[in-house]
């Protein structure tokens, strides 16, 4: 709303970025404890800012804050944990924390689909691959991040600019609200039943896209099967004798 407020917003973003940077896996002494503390302070500051700005706006405030904090914390754990298996499990936690947010937005069907598809199907694929591609010991690529400072600065700078613009332009937000077709209230979207609404829109207005999605899934399935049949010799055996590109020509048909 004013400069004081927006400087608080930027402070929060800087602290969050610092927390992510300190939590990144690194070679020397672990800085996880400092990163965790700074991250907790940043989350508390963000909650305070939101409560200050959106006081009493929705009935699900407590649920929103709890879910958002869990989602953000576990998302940070996904990208900072040294073990890929833990990353995958924290990603399940992120998905489960996002589900109540979708229910608060009256997207019940999407919330359930999210749990079934992500936590049920996609994550199982990830865990399978993690188990298939077990690396021995503690590989260097897991305990040393690549350019963490540049990545953190880039990511959070983008974020801070977007959020700062959004939060400090109340007039244009009012224009957006005025341009919206109907005033947003809690009741109308849930009237016929969310699943029925989604289904009727998807199978009338977007029926071509729906069919194309089915075709896409079929093509992806064929591709995945074809890839899994392909036998590729380990490069350790072939590398010294063959010129580049030769290996691909010698791979047998599947």
């Amino acid at each position: 709303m004013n400069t004081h407020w927006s400087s608080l917003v930027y402070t929060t973003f800087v602290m969050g970025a610092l927390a992510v940077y300190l939590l990144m896996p690194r070679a020397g002494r672990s800085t996880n404890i400092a990163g965790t503390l700074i991250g907790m302070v940043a989350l508390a500051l963000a909650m305070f800012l939101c409560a200050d700005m959106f006081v009493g706006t929705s009935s699900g405030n407590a649920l929103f804050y709890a879910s958002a904090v869990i989602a953000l914390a576990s998302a940070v754990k996904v990208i900072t944990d040294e073990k890929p298996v833990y990353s995958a499990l924290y990603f399940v936690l992120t998905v489960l924390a996002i589900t109540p947010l979708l229910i608060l937005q009256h997207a019940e069907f999407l919330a359930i689909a999210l749990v079934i598809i992500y936590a049920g199907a996609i994550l199982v694929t990830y865990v399978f691959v993690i188990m298939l591609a077990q690396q021995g010991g503690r590989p260097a690529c897991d305990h040393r991040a690549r350019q963490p400072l540049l990545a953190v600065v880039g990511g959070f700078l983008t974020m801070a600019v977007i959020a700062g613009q959004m939060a400090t332009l109340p007039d244009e937000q009012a224009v957006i609200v005025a341009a919206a077709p109907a005033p947003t209230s809690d009741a109308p979207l849930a009237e016929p039943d969310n699943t029925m609404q989604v289904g009727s829109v998807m199978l009338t207005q977007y029926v071509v896209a729906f069919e194309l999605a089915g075709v896409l899934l079929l093509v992806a399935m064929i591709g995945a099967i074809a890839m899994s049949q392909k036998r590729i010799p380990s490069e350790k055996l072939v590398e010294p004798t063959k010129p580049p590109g030769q290996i691909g020509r010698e791979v047998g048909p599947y």
Partner: protein
Amino acid sequence: MNDIVPYVILGALLFAIGMVGFLSRRNLIVIFLSTEIMLQGVVINLVALGRLHDHVNGQVFALFLFVIAAVEAGLALGLVVLLYRRRDTLDAERWTTMWG
């Protein structure tokens, strides 16, 4: 409107976290997990903005996003397994032959 802003900010934050992970991690599997976090942020944004305009198109779009995510996970992880079989490592920096 005030109902929507925290959701949009949360979605953008998740997107930023995923982007940081995508840029800085070296394990191929964790890189793809980071893209999934970015997709979660996008899903939250789609649902929130669809609610702002009071129709379910955002939710339908999010469902198509799930399809794309499933396809991406299946194909990308298949490729990761092939790469792993070839060099016995998941380190993305081992695959830099196109740097020139």
